[in-house]
Every structure is written in C-alpha cells, then in structure tokens.
C-alpha cells in the first residue's frame, strides 16, 4: 500500500523515535492514573487523588515534578557507575520491546520474521538491570531483592516462551504482523464474522501467558522481589529522585507493552475482522486503518492491563517456594501439554 506522501529516511526515523516514546509513556501514564490511582482507591472505598486538576487527572504531572526535584542520592559505598546505569538498562528493555509491536497495516516501527522471538529475548534484558541495581546498591535488602527478582524472572520466562508457541504453530509465523493478519482474515468453521482470534483455541496459552506476565512484571501476587514488609523495597531501596522515577515508569510501561503483545498474540491486535469491509489481504486494507488500528490496540491494552492491575490489587503475595513451585510444576507442564495438543490438531486438521 502506498501512502500519499513520501517521508525521507531521517523523517521516518524521527517519527519512529517519537512514536516509540509515545507508545511507552502514554500507556504508562494512563495505567498509573486510571488503575493505580483511581481503581485501587475505589476498591478500597476512598477517592484517590482529587486536588490536582479535575478528579486529580493532573496528579501525574505533580508526581513527576516532585520526583524530578528530589535529590539524586548515590550511597557512599555503592558501585556508582553500575548503580546509575541499572535503571536505564530496565527502561531500554521496555523501549526495545515496543519496537516490534504492530499498530496498523503500515503503522509499525519495524517488522521482521523473528519478531516474537525478539520480543522474548529483549524482555529478559530487564533482569540484567534489576540484578545490577540489587548488587551495586551495597545494601543487603537490595541484593536479596535483586536475587529474588532474577530467580523469579528466570523461572517465569520459560512458561512465557512455551505459552506463545501454540500461537506460532497456529499462525505458522513468528512475525507479529503476520499473526495479526492471520487472526483477522481467517474464519472459525467457515464463519468469518469475528475473524479467528487465537484466544478461541489458545485459551490455556493465554492464561499461562498472562500469569507469566504478571510474574515478569513483579506485580502482586508475584512481588516477592520488592516485598515491602520484609525487604523495604527490594532492589529499588536505595534509589531516589529521577532514577526511582525511571524504575517506576519502566514497571508500568512494560505492563502496557506486555498487554499490547498479549492483544497481538491472542486478541487479534490492531485489526478488525477483514470480512466486515470486504478486505481480503493486507494490500486491500483501507488507509484509515492506520489511525483506527492504534485505537483498537489501546482499547484492548487497557482491558488487559486492567486485568493485570485488578489481580494485583486483589490477591496476597505468594511465598518464595510457592512461587517457584507454581512455575515449574504447574505452568510449564500445562504449557508443554498445550503445545503438544496444538501440534496434533494442526497436523490433524
């Protein structure tokens, strides 16, 4: 499909950088305000922030301003360079993740064959940042938190990788754009009114994926690494000011990006069923889909992020051994069985 204007390469690069920043910061801000500030408050029978702006909607700017003017403290015995680099490593992992998420037929940052594989690979970089933060703080709570985080992220990365394999088998591709197009152009038993979102057949995979995402984000009930009642704040204990802000943004931005990826893999991504408008392939999709697609994606993301936050506010924390046992003895076997059944059905039909 040809767009009406030709944008030079530098312009495209600039647009990608801007788009990436928006795609990381906007979900983070929305999730924090809508869910962390408001939904959690309502669930606890209070109003949440009300002073800054109508219904406290400007609260985020106040918070960011507060953090930016706080003193940037590095502990005297800390390993200064590693300590300062750690939050950035975590944030970079988030930015790298958003690079492969497709938002529309032409509205993507990059797309290539190994897209899904890439997403799984770069999501593990944040573990590195957390380990760096925990070790360099020269604080035993931080170190314990960092080690707990690493152990947990390693354990839950496996079910996450295995749970998406069912989708790969069904779509026959690891390209996220191809997965979206497949879901919207296929039909369920000849009926194409809804396309064929893979949640219909990969519901087990979807569940395992969302549980693993919850653990990868270290959200309650998987928040052993920052268990505030025993470890102060885990690997984030010594951070203050804008470095803490970066950790905070990365946490919620990653929640948003994982929700986006889950919607791409299981809920049909940016697409609306192609049969509604008589589209038959990527090239016949109307141009307005590049504007509608991101909106569809954001809607699905808010639903999934809402579920992540809902679970976070509802359940108590897992103990460390329960957490590990759940990953190795429940999630991994279930996702392995899911892969086997999907492969059998793929060959049989």
């Amino acid at each position: 499909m040809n767009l009406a204007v030709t944008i030079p390469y530098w312009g495209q690069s600039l647009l990608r950088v801007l788009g990436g920043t928006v795609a990381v910061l906007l979900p983070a801000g929305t999730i924090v305000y809508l869910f962390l500030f408001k939904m959690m408050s309502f669930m606890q029978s209070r109003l949440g922030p009300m002073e800054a702006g109508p219904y406290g909607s400007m609260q985020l700017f106040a918070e960011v301003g507060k953090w930016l003017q706080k003193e940037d403290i590095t502990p005297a015995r800390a390993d200064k360079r590693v300590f300062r680099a750690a939050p950035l490593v975590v944030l970079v992992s988030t930015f790298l993740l958003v690079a492969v998420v497709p938002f529309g037929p032409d509205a993507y940052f990059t797309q290539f064959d190994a897209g899904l594989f890439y997403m799984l690979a770069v999501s593990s970089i944040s573990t590195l940042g957390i380990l760096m933060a925990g070790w360099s703080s020269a604080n035993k709570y931080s170190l314990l938190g960092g080690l707990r985080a690493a152990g947990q992220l390693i354990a839950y990365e496996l079910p996450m990788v295995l749970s998406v394999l069912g989708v790969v088998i069904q779509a026959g591709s690891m390209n996220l754009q191809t997965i979206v197009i497949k879901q919207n152009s296929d039909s369920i038993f000849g009926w194409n009114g809804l396309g064929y979102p893979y949640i219909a057949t990969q519901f087990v995979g979807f569940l395992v994926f969302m549980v693993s995402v919850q653990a990868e984000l270290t959200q309650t009930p998987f928040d052993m690494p920052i268990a505030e009642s025993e470890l102060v704040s885990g690997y984030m204990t010594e951070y203050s000011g804008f470095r803490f802000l970066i950790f905070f943004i990365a946490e919620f931005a990653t929640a948003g990006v994982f929700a986006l990826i889950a919607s791409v893999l299981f809920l049909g991504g940016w697409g609306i069923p192609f049969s509604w408008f008589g589209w038959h392939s990527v090239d016949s999709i109307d141009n307005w889909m590049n504007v509608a697609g991101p909106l569809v994606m954001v809607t699905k993301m808010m639903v999934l992020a809402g579920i992540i936050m809902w679970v976070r506010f509802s359940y108590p924390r897992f103990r460390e051994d329960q957490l590990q046992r759940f990953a190795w003895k429940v999630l991994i076997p279930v996702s392995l069985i899911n892969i086997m059944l999907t492969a059998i059905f793929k060959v049989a039909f």
Partner: protein
Amino acid sequence: MMLASDIQVAQNIGFGIIAAVMVLAAIRVVTSKNVVHAALSLIAVMAGAAAQYLLLSAEFVAVTQVLVYIGAVMVLFLFGVMLTRAKLGKDVDLDNKGAWAYGAPIALLMLGVMVYVLTKGFKDTKISVSGKGSNVGQNSLLSDKIFSSYALPFWALSFVLLAAVIGAIVLARKD
C-alpha cells in the same frame, strides 16, 4: 572483483564502531579487578556480537545471541557470582599472575587461525541481502536445514544438554 560501488559505507562504519566497542569491552573483561564488572563487560561483548549478526542480516542468530547469552547465560552467571562472592570494589586476587605471558600468544594464534579459515573458506563470496529473491534471514529456511540435513548433529547436541542437566542434578542433590 570488488568494485568501489559495492562497498557499503554505512554498514562498514557501523561495523567499525561496534567492533571497536567490542574490543575495548573484551580487554576490560580480562583487566577488570572486579568480577561483576568483568561479567558486565562480557555482556557488552555479547551484545556487540548480536549487533554484528544484525549487520549481516542474520536476525534470527542475533536474537538467539541476545536470548541465550545475555538473557540466560550471563544472568545466571551474575546470579551465581552475586550469590556467592558479591564483593564491591577491587578484588586483588582476581587476576592470575603472568597470565599475559601465555594469554597473548594464544589470542594471536586464534586470530591467525580465524583469519586463515575465513579467507580460505569464503574468498570473495558475496551474499545477496537485498531484492525480492533474497531469502537471507528467513526462519523457515534455517529450520528446514536444521531438521533435515543437520538433524543428526542437532539431536547429538540435545544429548549433550541432557547430560549437563543430569550432571547438575547429581551435583546438587546431597541425598
């Protein structure tokens, strides 16, 4: 025959910068007095290798490099180091005395062997990476190769991994 127009300037500059960073980081790995710093430098080397694979349009290998070496091996390595001897600051007995005396010749020998093998094996072969007919970087091609002509080595490799897993269990279990 290599023509001047065949030389990809941007790619070569990229290669040069990444290679320089990799060499510096590799030197830091062996000269650093802190074991965690050495490991972090090693990560920089691995990331550089992944970037070089990307320049060669071998994106699958590049992503595998990130997933396996940075995401798994180095994280486990750091995890182990921090769990056992997570010392901040300088570690005096980290370096072996006189390691340079035999380390440097071995490194030079490796360099010689690799340059010889690469120039002999590829000569001036060029891989076409652009255009519609090119299938460089296609995952299906790679998987077809692995599961057909390279199936036996692939299975043999998985047995090596199985042996490692069993070995780990034997070492870890005390009863």
